[in-house]
Structures are given as C-alpha cells and as structure tokens.
C-alpha cells in the first residue's frame, strides 16, 4: 500500500487547536503544522519539544567572553604593553575594569550571532532555499495539519480520513507519495 499524506486545512487557529486535541486523543500522530503565526499551546499537543537554542546562545556568549578576556590580555598585556595614562599594563586583572565594555559587547556579539546562525541552520532557512509549505495560504490566514500514514501504522488511510472529517475541516487534500 502506498503511503498517503493528508493535508488538513483549517480556517481558524481555535479550530486547528480543537482538531489537534481531538485527533491526538484518538491516537493519531500529527507530523507537522504549517501556520501563518505561532499558535500558542499547540506544541505540547502535537509533541513538539522545547528548543535548546537559548542554551546554545549562552554557550556562544561564554565563548565570546573568554575570547575577549584572552584578546585583551594578549593585545594589551602580553604582546605589546603600553603605558597609557599610567594604567597598569603589566597585569590583566588590574587593567580589567577598562576592558569590561569590550568583554560585554563581544559576549553579546557572539551570543546573538551564534544563536542566529544556529537558528537559520536548524530551521533550514537560508538565502535561496525553496519553501516547503503545502499551500501558499498557510502564510496568510489558513492552518494546515500534515498527517502521514507512515507514522500511523495502526490505522488504515480510510480510518484516518474518517477521524479527520469529524473535525471542523476547511479543505482536505490527500496525496500518495
């Protein structure tokens, strides 16, 4: 039997939420949801885990801090110490207050850009990438739920279709792949 993909369209976020709850409670696994804006509360229903991007950002920022500490020590203390207005050029820790602004800025720089790059790579959103939403209306005012037979081994395509039709569907498209 060929695998089938159901693209179930709803015209309201509340209808989508109700449908997702109803289908999931009947044991259907929802593969993905395409929506024009974040639908709050949907993630736990369809089993999307919390992202770890914030942790990544913290690690990038810490790397930035360490690099800035190393840089200021290397440039100002180790490689070419200079007497600037009598500021201590022989010890990093004594000169450190003057380096705080650069350390802070560089931490933010690395934290923000590292996270942004990770975000683009993880999402697969890069310049020139093709869009993968099944219907152009999902970036306007429609919400599409994607269900595949492959992930719902216990049920036949007809059973799934019946369950879907029990929700407040706006449009349904079934494709084989």
């Amino acid at each position, binding site marked *: 039997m060929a695998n089938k993909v159901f693209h179930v369209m709803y015209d309201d976020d509340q209808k989508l939420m109700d449908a997702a709850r109803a289908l999931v409670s009947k044991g259907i696994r929802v593969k993905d949801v395409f929506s024009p804006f974040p639908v709050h509360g949907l993630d736990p229903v369809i089993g999307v885990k919390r992202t770890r991007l914030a942790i990544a950002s913290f690690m990038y920022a810490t790397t930035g801090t360490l690099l800035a500490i190393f840089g200021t020590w290397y440039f*100002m203390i180790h490689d070419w110490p200079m007497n600037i207005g009598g500021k201590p050029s022989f010890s990093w820790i004594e000169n450190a207050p003057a380096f705080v602004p650069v350390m802070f800025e560089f931490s933010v720089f690395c934290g923000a850009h590292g996270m942004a790059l990770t975000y683009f790579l993880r999402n697969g959103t890069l310049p020139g990438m093709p869009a993968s939403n099944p219907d152009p209306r*999902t970036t306007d005012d429609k919400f599409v739920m994607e269900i595949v037979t492959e992930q719902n081994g216990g049920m036949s395509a007809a059973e799934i279709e019946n369950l879907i039709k029990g929700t407040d569907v706006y449009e349904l498209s079934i494709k084989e792949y």
Partner: protein
Amino acid sequence: MLKEASIRQPLILGHKTYHDITNDIVGPIEGPAPRQWKIALSIAAVIALYGIGCISYLVATGIGAWGLNKTVGWAWDITNFVWWVGIGHAGTLISAVLLLFRQRWRMAINRSAEAMTIFAVMMAAVFPVFHMGRVWQAYWTLPLPNQFGSLWPNFNSALMWDVFAISTYFSVSLVFWYIGLIPDFATIRDRMVKPGMKRFYSILSFGWSGRAKNWTRFEEVSLVLAGIATPLVFSVHSIVSMDFATSVVPGWHTTIFPPYFVSGAIFSGFAMVLTLLLIMRKTMRLEAYIHVRHVEYMNIVIIVTGSIVGVAYLTELFISWYSGVEYEAYAFINRFSGPYSWSYWMMMTCNVISPQLFWFKKIRTNLAATFVLSIVVNIGMWFERFVIIVTSIHRDYVPGAWGEFHPSGIDVGMFVGTIGIFFTLFLLFARYFPVLALNELKTILKMSGESYKKEAEKH
C-alpha cells in the same frame, strides 16, 4: 486562548480578519508606487546625493573642510553621531524592552522603529568613520595581526569601546530585525504573482514555511535576542557617553552621563518614531493599527524620559557648584550665560519644558500637537549634544586659546545629507518591506481587536 481585560482599549480598530491584516499591509507593496511617495523619494534622494557629494569632497580635501579649529576639535561631527545613535535607540527599546514587558502595543510599531534604528545607526557611523580622515584605513580600529611592530588598538580607550559597541549594536539589531521579517517576507512571497517579484521575496524569505517547530524556535530566538539586546541598548549609549565622561574636560567629566545619555537617547528616539509613524499611518492608511492609543503610550514614554533628562540637567548644574571645582563651575556658568547660551536655552525649552505639555491628556492624544512636539524634541536633543560638546571645549584653560566654532558648508551639507540618506532608506523600506509585523499582529487580533473584544463582552 488568552482573554484580555475588557477595560483595556483595543489595539486593532474595526473588524479585521487575518486575511484583512495581510491585505492591509501587503496590498500597498503589490500596487503601483503612489505619487506622493515618488515625490518624497526624489526630494530625499537629491538631498542624499548632495550629502554624498559633501562627503566625497571631505575625503578628497581632508578634515580641514569642516569648521573645526585648534580649540574646538570636536563639534558637529560628534554631535551628529550622538544624535543619530540616540535616535536609533528607540527601535531596540520598543522591540526588545517592550517584548520583555509583554507590551502588545509594540507590535504595530516595532518593525518600522527597528528599521529606523538600523538606518539611524548607519548614519551615525558616517561621522566617526569619515572623521578618521584616511577612511580607507578604517579597519585599523580592529585588532588585526599586522606588520606595524605588532601595533594593537588601545582597549583602554572609550573610542575603542565605541567601535565594539556600535558594531555589535548595529549587527545585532540588523539580525533581530531580519529574523522578524522572514515570516512576513514569506507571506508576501506566497501572494506575489509577478515572477520577478516572487523570486525577489522568495530569496528574502529564506524558504520560510511556518512549521510548528520553526515557530517555536522563532519565539525562543526573539525572546533571547530581546533579553540580550536590552542590556546591549543600555550599554551602547553608556559607552557613547563615556567618550566624554572618561575624559578630563570640565563639563564632560561627570559620572551622571551614562544614565542621562541613555534616557536622552530613548527620549529622542521615541520622538523620531512618532515623527515617522504619524506620517506613515496616514499615507499608508494604517490608522486601524497605529492609532491614538499607541501615540499616547509613546508620549507617556516621552514624558518619563524627558523628565529624567530634565532632572539630569539640573543635577549637573547643582553638582558643578557643589563640587567646589571652579573650572567645573565655570563650564556650566559659561553654558547658560556665555556666547553659546542661546543653544543652552534652546535645549532647555525644547527638552525640559515642551514635553511637559504631554501631561495634558488633550495634548498627548492630539496627533497634530504630537507631531509638532516630536520635531521640537528632536531639535532640542540635537542642541543638547551641541551644548555638551562645543560649550565645554570652546573656552580652554588659557584665555589665549579661547575660540568659537563656525560650521562650514561641508559641516551643514554632511548633516543635512545624512538626513536625506536616512529618509531615502526609510522610504524604500516603507515601499518594499512589510511595515508592520503583520504575522505577529495576527497573534493579538483575537485578544485586542476591537470587534473581538466587543464579541467577548457579550458572553
């Protein structure tokens, strides 16, 4: 679904559906360019070209083309720099700080405020970069390995901190703005019919598809970026103020500068946002999204920050006397009674007295009055920087070295030119980019939309 208290005023007026929001924001991009826009763009472009001409002349001739002299070695250049950076601050404040405080009214204004930030910071960067003289060697400010006897930039210097602060601020604001734009570009991409335009927005939208996981990441990234952009915005203007505060010049050497500069920046930034938005909402018919309530909220921020600035002016005066340092005291006496006292009183009137008019509800909810006052505040904030910079240095310790500053034609041309470049960029943004965060607005439609609130009250 979250319900909002019924006594809160609606943020989106009239009855709108999700599709209406898309139509209202994307419609103007699809249609032909309006005549008013073409006229405004032509005027801005001519001024911008004049500015670019002045900059080219400056680079070819040298910094002597400015009116600087031995005593006043810093004048309009740094005044314009601080003024533009200050204006830039409102965008990040609106998008980051108001996001952390969950202020939903930010959604109607954050996109254009952030665009304003980015263009304003670009204009700010023009001044220090061209003040270097040999601008092609601007990369010397970066700690790059080199053959000049291993000469590194001086990390003890506030000017070096500025290089890091401004470049971080600019690039982080740009990324923050662009991440928010991607889903909206995707909306435009999916609506466009003309293949050329579709291709253009397709590239800009990075292939955004709006999957559930993408949105989870989007919200997390927005929140974390807001969290780190908030201290960033405070640090940037603090560092700008340290360009002065860490020096030993009477009138500059004051610890009050960082908070005073930051509130001044927010003050002038909100004024500029108001100036731009009041025109934009009218010409692009966004009255349903940006209305009196938004303007009133922004005016309240202006009262608060304007009053902080006022208190800072008076504190400075008091401390200059209380310190017992006669040079310090003289710097301030000279400010309000010396040859530049006209600029001091101009600053006092525009920044301290005029925003107090917003205590009257009639005035702060009047759009015409707000527009006029927002321009007054912008003028006042330019004079604040001029007062701090020029009056503090034009009378040196030795009376033989006293001098005055007279701007040259190039000084004026460059300043006016940056305003032209700024408006050119902003007009292009208003024409080709989604001017409101339309997909974010859809998330608040059912809580804060007028018709939905009325519907909810019936139940």
